[in-house]
């Protein structure tokens, strides 16, 4: 049984690294020690009018320092509250939650789209194989330098302001890239396209999915996704993104 902790984390530092995109480092007592690439944590609001946790994926893990790096987009009142906090402020967090990415040795595509880019950084750091990192943005770039440390980075932007004009698959084609396994996180249309690409090229494909959550630990059945086969726990064709996921074999889930 995976170890999970509820802690008062302390903000080491926070900065806005792109429009409405914030980078926050948190000091944790135990969570960083147990966290794996591709897992997430639940962050609780200090304001009593918001009672549900915000699931935020883990961008980097510094086990030596017991620190977690989170990069999130301000999407509502909860993240609005988080982004205003300064060094030393406390946040109640629970984690590590979900299952991370498997780490295989084949030549890999590490693909991130938009706010799906951050969770791929720790994986890029840990994977020991030939890494082709493909990052898709609307326009403004972030975390690119961090990714360059761990592999060759290819960019795609919707407005063509950097790299290939278009999406990550356009970048893959334009650069004539290929790989034997895909690890990806990003918007649904991107994940659908990558699933199709993986089937077409008959390669393994692991994707990290997102859904509205309540408990974050698998009890409430809010954040389900449809599974190809009957799930052992639910006894229906549904898997819990917070528990069986957020990382799934693309072939196993219908979306």
């Amino acid at each position: 049984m995976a170890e999970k902790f509820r802690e008062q984390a302390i903000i080491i530092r926070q900065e806005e690294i792109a429009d409405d995109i914030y980078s926050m480092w948190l000091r944790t007592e135990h969570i960083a020690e147990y966290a794996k690439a591709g897992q997430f944590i639940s962050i609780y609001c200090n304001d009593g009018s918001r009672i549900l946790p915000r699931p935020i994926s883990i961008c980097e893990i510094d086990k030596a320092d017991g620190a977690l790096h989170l990069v999130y987009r301000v999407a509502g009142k909860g993240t609005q509250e988080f982004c205003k906090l300064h060094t030393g402020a406390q946040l109640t967090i629970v984690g590590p939650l979900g299952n991370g990415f498997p780490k295989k040795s084949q030549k890999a595509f590490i693909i991130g789209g938009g706010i799906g880019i951050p969770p791929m950084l720790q994986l890029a750091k840990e994977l020991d194989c030939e890494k082709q990192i493909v990052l898709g943005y609307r326009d403004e770039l972030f975390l690119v330098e961090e990714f360059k440390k761990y592999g060759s980075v290819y960019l795609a932007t919707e407005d063509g302001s950097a790299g290939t004009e278009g999406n990550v698959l356009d970048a893959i084609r334009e650069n004539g890239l290929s790989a034997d396994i895909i690890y990806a996180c990003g918007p649904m249309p991107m994940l659908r396209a990558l699933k199709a690409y993986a089937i077409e090229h008959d390669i393994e494909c692991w994707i990290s999915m997102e859904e509205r959550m309540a408990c974050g630990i698998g009890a409430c059945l809010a954040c389900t996704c449809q599974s190809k086969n009957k799930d052992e726990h639910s006894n229906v064709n549904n898997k819990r993104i917070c528990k069986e996921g957020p990382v799934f074999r693309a072939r196993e889930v219908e979306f």
Partner: protein
Amino acid sequence: MNTSVNIAGVTFKNPVMTASGTFGSGAEYSEFVDLNRLGAVVTKGVANVPWPGNPTPRVAEVYGGMLNAIGLQNPGIDLFIERDIPFLKHYDTKIIVNVCGKTTEDYCEVVERLADQPIDMMEINISCPNVKEGGIAFGQDPKAVEAITREVKKYAKQPVIMKLSPNVTDITTMAKAAEAGGADALSLINTLTGMKIDIHRQQFALANKTGGMSGPAVHPIAVRMVYQVAQAVDLPIIGMGGIMNAEDAIEMILAGATAVSVGTANFTNQTVTTEIVDGIEEYMSRYGVDDVCELIGAVHE
């Protein structure tokens, strides 16, 4: 100091239970909470066959609460009996199984399957739409409440708790109907029907359009209904609805509840249930209350 309460002949070590649907069958929360410290675990609603539930999004946060439209996804009674009951039997707590269905026959089938199981009570969720009656919930029509209670009691070997819907004009008529049908206890409130709209996409926040509202926002409505029902019937009441801490739990007991169920609060604080157990004991020692039963319905003008 006595913290144990008795409901329909079943003794609970303390009045703190989990609200159905928020706690699964306890496995996930057992990583945070010692289930042995709970008065009872009330499991997520189970039907005669597996239900896939609703499309997502299934939940939305609202001010001081949340909406849910899970659609009663459940693995069905067979796997539940094979897996969930044995899991809970490892703990020294009472087991209350919540039952849902689409027709009276569905309910009775599940209740019959549970009759010879080592569980302590059953809670019947009558907020489900009655598909044979045009989809109005059983719990919104007194005749339907009395009828389903009477039918279920024919098959039940354990005491039966009828869980009332708050989406009614007069909760006491529903309580009396359940009493007339032979209910052994009542639990209330189930969720209030709410809706949230995303003004930027101009779409419903939930795929199901409406959802059941829970959380501290609904607590005053729950306290009012528990008080009204306690005045209207002689059945023991399990009070629930937005209980976030010991103070809320004690308020519910003072209003007339013999026990309380804690639901949405588990999402905000994984260990809230045992904190409430401790908080009730602290309150009792602070005010010199020897027996928690002295607090039941003790509110006065």
